[in-house]
């Protein structure tokens, strides 16, 4: 929401890799894969990473609700667990972290884009401070590659080959006013 007005305009001219329908189908598939992998929703906790991971986690939860009971959903902000603040520049004020009991639970960590893996590393550190889950699996809407750490997603909505410099954005109605996954080449980003 208003991160920068100019990139919004740029984003409008780019053909989305996933549109509203594509995102909806992907979320539905993620929901089914999560429940299948867990053989139901017993002990299942969906933990979304702020901000868009939380939105996706909520959408997945309401999908699951259509064929099972409602799973527990938590939100996690990893700003204060990042180790690269001096490289990636300054971050905004952390958003709320609200987690249900994680001890012994089957945690599904959810994020919008998997890139270097550093956010996930930070999230794993943060979860450790809350308790010891039975296991943690990772589900992402988009995997764009270029990992810098030995981390991979267990459930991937869509693999998108990108150049390292590309800017991959997941836009969601709740946060951005519309649904789309777009890739812009930073070189052409006038």
């Amino acid at each position, binding site marked *: 929401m208003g991160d920068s007005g100019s990139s919004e305009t740029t984003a409008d001219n780019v053909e989305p890799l996933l549109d509203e329908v594509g995102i909806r189908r992907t979320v539905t598939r993620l929901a089914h894969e999560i429940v299948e992998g867990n053989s139901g929703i017993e002990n299942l906790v969906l933990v979304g990473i702020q901000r868009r991971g939380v939105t996706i986690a909520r959408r997945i939860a309401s999908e699951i609700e259509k064929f099972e009971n409602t799973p527990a959903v938590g939100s996690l*902000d990893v*700003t*204060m*667990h990042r*180790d690269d*603040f*001096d490289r990636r*520049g*300054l*971050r*905004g*004020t*952390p*958003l*709320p*972290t*609200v987690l249900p009991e994680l001890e012994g639970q089957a945690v599904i960590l959810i994020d919008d884009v998997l890139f270097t893996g550093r956010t996930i590393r930070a999230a794993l*550190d*943060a979860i*450790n*401070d*809350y*308790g010891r889950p039975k296991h943690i699996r990772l589900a992402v809407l988009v995997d764009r590659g270029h990992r810098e750490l030995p981390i991979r997603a267990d459930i991937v909505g869509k693999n998108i080959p990108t150049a390292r410099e590309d800017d991959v954005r997941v836009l969601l109605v709740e946060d951005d006013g519309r649904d789309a996954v777009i890739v812009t080449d930073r070189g052409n980003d006038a």
Partner: protein
Amino acid sequence: MTAKANLDIQAIPEEGTTSSHLPSGRWPHHDMLDLDNCRRPDIEVVLTLADRMREILDRRIPRVPALRGYTIVNLFYEPSTRTRVSFELAGKVLGADVISVSTNTSSVVKGESLIDTVRTLRAMRSDAVVMRHPMAGAPYLAAQHTDASIINAGDGAHAHPTQALLDLYTMHRSIGDIAGKKIVMVGDIAHSRVARSDLWGLTTMGAHVVVCGPPTLLALGMRVSDRPSHAENALPPVTIETNIDQAIEDADVVMALRLQSERQEGGLLPSLHEYATHYQVTAERLARAKPDHLLMHPGPKNEGIEIAADVAGGSHSIIEDQVTNGVAVRMALLYLLSGRIEPEEVTELST
């Protein structure tokens, strides 16, 4: 020093910009000396961030690496337990290195000047110096001679901004927006640095502030009409009341201040007993406040003097919350001063 001067200039919005909003969202303070130069949005950022810090404090393992590699020195020229420990904890929870210097075992006893001490600490790469000093203004002097962030943890009877921020945060957590609320401070206003910083913070947030105490313990210049023309804005406007029953009438928050016996020159009070009779915050007196009023005290308390023991531990008391919140607020402040985040201005405070 030059480096810091530049920083401050960058941070101040240029005159003529369209709004009072920060150009980049960067928190505009390099030091925390008092709240007199803090705008409402600056304080709101601290309150929001303090909420996030409370979440961390409530974790099973309250420790994050947000300030790894950041060095904080506690430099206390006056005794303190809660403030020093609070800063120490705040730094450690955020993963900073925290060193506490007690001045009676440091080179200060060999006659090292304050300026030399802060320069030495900076030469050793300390990023922030938390300072308590018996002389009003000492942290301002220190701030002019180092580019480490100086945090005033109490200077004489002048200011104690982090206590004021934790008071604001504690009220915010309990009652939400304090705009228009009646906040009464009772006791030794004249010697209270807490009261002065609270006055700035509370009035900036729109509260209706009443100070109450015996005339000898109300600061000179508390009344605007008593101030010389060059010092009209030395303190924000407040309502002054010497009758405690009238002061407490309909109060949303009553804050008892410690009677600072170590700072009482002769003659201000006939006796402690006399003071307690007329100004002690008691259950009977609090009955005049709003039914859901809150009772606060910055500590350390003299129970039986400025506050009755039963109300201090009673159901309206949020004195212990103040202590826990103090750690959260100091974490928020250290994180902001470190420059490692760029907070957006808060449009709506969550409650």
